[in-house]
């Protein structure tokens, strides 16, 4: 293979990535714009910092493209444990910002190890999954991958930064792709459905629905001359009802009020525009005010007035919606969807499990961030503070996602290179 890597590069993914990052900088500029501001690349301003990290990401990414493909395989294990070490050392050397001990202070910049730990986890998980001894049908392997995922999650929850910890659930998609029993997905979806149902409806109603559904499925199967056994249905029903009761108990007794509020506002059970609901409401106003074509760059009144808290970080989508309108919002959504699908599409071409699982990990993490963050800005998902990949202000996040993308690009370009 003497061809230059540039001929084999996934230019489409690179282009999508660059578009999102540049558009992000544009919107951070607008979201933090102060009347009369002239210095574009002052490193004290968020735009300046974000631009710096963008450039750092491109430099680091360029270097990655010329690394030997085997290095990732070899370094994945030590890199993962290095990340775990960093997460642990945060408790000793970390800096506390807004209540969470998630940062290292490096020369005036804050670095967030939890962002980089995603890369380590994606690589290490791919490495383990590519091991011929790993079989997700066996409890041993299941225990192993659970350990890989739960260790960083646990450490991050302790910071406490539960939002960032939740991101590791994204790797569930990787596991499903690599042979995890689909029953897990079914149970997960059923659990989410029952959870939301319990919050929205009364317990007797939920129990009736569960029983009715099971009876219908049972009768349907019976009609098709399939001989279903009654016992599993009774078992499932009992579990479901128990789950409903426990959700009710946990929600009302174990959750704190602020957690309950986050769900109740999204589900429309409480109307609150001043307290906890303020963010969501202001974000919806900002996006709604954008209309079809948006108010234009630097013309968003909500954005200028700083009405949406954290509008350059977690709520950056509200600025996009207000200033670029429906058109801009849909374009961003399409860019993300295209990037995720493109990575999965390319991953499926890989014959090597390690590289495929890694690419899947990248796509899953991007998907999870995109789903939670945009959903939150649109008022459809409870407030969980995680950034919109490539776009939200945050050096660690941008750098980590950039490196993640460039590692994928390297692996993809060397798809036909056997080691």
């Amino acid at each position, binding site marked *: 293979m003497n061809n230059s890597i540039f001929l084999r590069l996934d230019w489409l993914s690179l282009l999508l990535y660059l578009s999102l990052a540049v558009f992000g900088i544009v919107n951070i500029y607008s979201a933090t714009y102060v009347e009369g501001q002239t210095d574009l690349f002052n490193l004290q301003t968020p735009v300046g910092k974000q631009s710096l990290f963008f450039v750092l990401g491109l430099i680091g990414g360029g270097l990655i493209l010329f690394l030997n493909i085997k290095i990732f395989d070899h370094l994945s294990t030590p890199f993962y444990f290095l990340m775990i070490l960093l997460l642990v050392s945060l408790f000793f050397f970390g800096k506390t910002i807004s209540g969470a001990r998630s940062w290292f202070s490096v020369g005036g910049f804050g670095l967030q190890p939890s962002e980089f730990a995603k890369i380590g986890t994606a690589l290490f998980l791919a490495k383990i999954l590519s091991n011929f001894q790993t079989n997700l049908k066996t409890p041993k392997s299941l225990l192993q991958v659970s350990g890989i995922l739960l260790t960083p999650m646990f450490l991050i929850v302790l910071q406490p930064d539960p939002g960032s910890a939740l991101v590791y659930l994204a790797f569930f998609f990787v596991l499903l792709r690599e042979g995890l029993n689909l029953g897990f997905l079914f149970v997960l979806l059923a659990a989410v459905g029952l959870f939301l149902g319990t919050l929205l409806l009364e317990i007797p109603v939920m129990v009736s629905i569960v029983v009715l559904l099971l009876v219908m499925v049972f009768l349907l199967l019976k009609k098709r001359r399939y001989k279903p056994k009654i016992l599993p249905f009774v078992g499932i029903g009992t579990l479901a009802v128990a789950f409903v009761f426990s959700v009710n108990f946990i929600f009302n007794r174990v959750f704190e009020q602020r957690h309950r509020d986050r769900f109740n506002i999204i589900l429309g059970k409480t109307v609150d525009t001043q307290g906890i609901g303020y963010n969501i409401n202001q974000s919806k106003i900002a996006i709604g*005010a954008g*209309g079809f074509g948006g108010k234009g760059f630097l013309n968003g*009144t909500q954005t*200028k007035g700083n009405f949406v808290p954290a509008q350059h970080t977690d709520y950056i989508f509200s600025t996009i919606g207000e200033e670029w*309108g429906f058109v801009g*919002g849909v374009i961003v959504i399409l860019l993300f969807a295209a990037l*995720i699908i493109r990575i999965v599409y390319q991953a499926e071409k890989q014959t090597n499990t390690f590289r495929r699982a890694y690419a899947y990990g990248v796509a899953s993490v991007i998907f999870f961030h995109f*789903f939670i963050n945009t959903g939150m800005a649109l008022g459809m998902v409870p407030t969980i503070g995680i950034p919109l990949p490539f776009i939200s202000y945050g050096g660690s996040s941008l750098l980590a996602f950039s490196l993640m993308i460039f590692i994928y690009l390297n692996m993809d370009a060397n798809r036909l290179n056997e080691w």
Partner: protein
Amino acid sequence: MNRKLLLPGFTVFVALLFAFRLGYLQISSNNYQSLSENNAVIERPVYPERGYIYDRNGTLLVANQPAFDLMAIPEQLKAFDTLALTQMLRITPEFLTKKLNDSRRYSVKLPSVVVAQIDPKTHGILQEKIWKYPGFYLQDKSQRAYHTQAAANILGYVSEVNTSDLKKDAYYQMGELIGRQGIEKYYEKYLRGTKGKVYYQKDKFNRIIGDYQDGQNNLEVTQANDIYLTLDIDLQAYGEQLFQNKRGGVVAIEPATGEVLALVTAPSFDPQLLVGRSRSENFRVLRNDTVAKPLFDRGLQAQYAPGSPFKTLNALIALQENTLSPETLFPCDGGHYYAKGAFMECHCSVGTRNNLLSAIYNSCNTYFSYTYRRIIEAYPTPQEGINQWKKHLNSFGLGNYLGYDLPIGQPGYIPDASLYDRVYGERGWKAPTIISNAIGQGEILTTPMQMANFTAAIANRGFYVKPHFMKSISGEPQLSEYEKKWTTVDSIHFETVIEGMHKVVEQGTARVARIKDIEVCGKTGTVENFILLDGQKTQLTDHSMFIAFAPKDNPKIALAVFVENGYWGARWAAPIASLMIEKYLNKTVKRSWLEQRMLNGSLEAEYQKPYSGVPFKINE
């Protein structure tokens, strides 16, 4: 189930979901647009300076002066020397503490007024020291500045809008000023101009952070207009001076144009009293004086029986109706029996025979009783007669609002057949029943403004121009409004009456009003009046009344003067009228003896009588 499609499937599903949600928020639901505007855009008014008011000669009467409010932004306050500040402002520390607590409750980030309308002197001291008090600042405001102490009743005043103003006119907002009375009220729209609007972008703390959309929605200010009045401020001030310690009023009109030269009401007040911090306190004092009634414009709002001056109108009507000629003679024997056993007194000596001319300058009651009977009896029924009489009087502007450009007034009253039919029954009355109308007593009511107006109509030989106070708006005369209104009496009939009025001054009842080298025409009046005192109808000393115009040919000024409880017409009203004519036509007054008598004369003792609680005599 194909595992490969799982993540792409979720991605497509979520992307579609979000796109629909975006479409709902941004396209189909449009209440977010206005929500966002309420949220983020603030509207600030820009005020034009209120218009100035000048008199007919261009003398500045009303201008503006800066006033200052001491503002505080609670968030920015630091510990300060409370005592020094309260001493400078002459307020108590408790007041300051209360005000600061109030403003903190209102908002810690937005400014509130701590002390309003600080006078320029205190402001001067405060301005040098204000840097010691972070969080405090002085805000400019504008308030009226009066360059005259006269004419308060005409100029009116401004005050802050109240809730009913806000309901009536959407233009105004809380805290703005509105013309409340007088010219300020009537010409409010010209004097205020139209405020502009500036839109600002605000942030989540309601702080202004810049122009909204580069100011493209801003509304330009329309500058206010200056008003030039028809008033002669020297004459006005002179009139007010002559009326010191007396109650009553003067209305002076330029006959040919209907321009009001002076509108004196006494007692009045200094217009500057209704400006600034003590405005409401001063206003309360003025309003609560229900005896002297300084806020009551006697020239426009007081309705009196017109008395003898009214005889001139009855003469004109009789001439027009052809029931009288200048040569008609009527005998008078110190009065006459107008009905069986009903005698009307007259000061003519027994055996007098008056023609119209001598009847006017001798003010013969008998003569005008006969004249009035002839008017009424010229028609088959007294009903027709009196209604015809009323029609003539209406053409002189009596019995209804004149329509001048001030917001207050009274219509006066001219009785007609329906009143007497109601009181006496349709067949229960004839001319003698209502004979008091002949001499301006009876049921007739006129305002001094109406009297001055019919005097002007006589001076004009048959027409008047609606009296008015506005000469021009920013130098543009508004002529179209003011055209001649002809009376129903032909011009030829006026000469005899005018000659009679001239003789009143030359050799009749008002010789005191004679001015060297000026032919003055006038008519005195002595008006009986009553009040309710402890539920009893009590007669008080007569009102002194005089109407006049001068010069006789090509008249320049017509006026009506009345002095409450001044007894006979020539005692107070005629001298005051005469002095004002001299002042207006000659610019100086040579008869200082008469001037001194008027200036020094006081009727306060007369006004105290009904309230003294002891029996009193009238007409002494």
